[in-house]
């Protein structure tokens, strides 16, 4: 699952080489969403901050 942003970015780059800008942008949006989702899943520990 951690490969998802990279896989989507690779698909987008493939679309770029084929000059499919819309497809590339769509893949990038999905990659960004995947990255943020994985970030959410890994933000589990509380920050050790005390004021």
């Amino acid at each position, binding site marked *: 699952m951690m490969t998802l*942003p*990279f896989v989507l970015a690779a698909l987008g780059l493939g679309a770029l080489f084929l*000059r499919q800008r819309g497809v590339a942008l769509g893949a990038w949006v999905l990659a960004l969403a995947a990255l943020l989702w*994985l970030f959410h*899943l*890994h933000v589990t520990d509380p920050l050790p901050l*005390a004021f």
Partner: protein
Amino acid sequence: MLRTLSLHLNTLGLLAIVAVLAFAFADQVIHGDLPCPLCLLQRGGFVLAGFGLALNLTCGTRASHYAVVILGAVAGGAVAVRQVLLHIVPSTGAYGEPLLGLHFYSWAALLFGLIIVGTAVLLLFDGGFSRPHDRPGDQSAGPGRLGLLALVLFTLMVLANILSTALECGLGLCPDNPTNDEWLAPPPRTP
């Protein structure tokens, strides 16, 4: 003139991102330091930011492509800052060995900030954008040899990260402190 300069700067930016990804990858391979999940997501942030530069090189420079760079850098920067905050209190440990006094996630936070500022500076120059009638594939809008090289190297780095991440994490989520590759040497199962 400005458009050519803009393309050159995009090429240099993409090569810089390739260098960052290659350095992190080399550290992983040479020193055997497996990247943590947040480290992998920071690499993803660099890839997402570099994607905007790749868009500029292949489809012409546009403000929307610079927005792609900034959004990717903000996402990666958020991950890097989160990891900095995890270790900011003294005696709370750190992940990995420092480089020139800073850990990789601190460097990443700085670099993402630099990417955002650099992109904002490029956005200042209206003459650096492609004209509406420029079509992808025109000689004037092409990436040039160095740009093509940057694109190929960037794609190779993305593919290498797919492979290494799959080897390390398998099909699921990565453990917070990975000690071995999931697919190459899976941990022994406990009954």
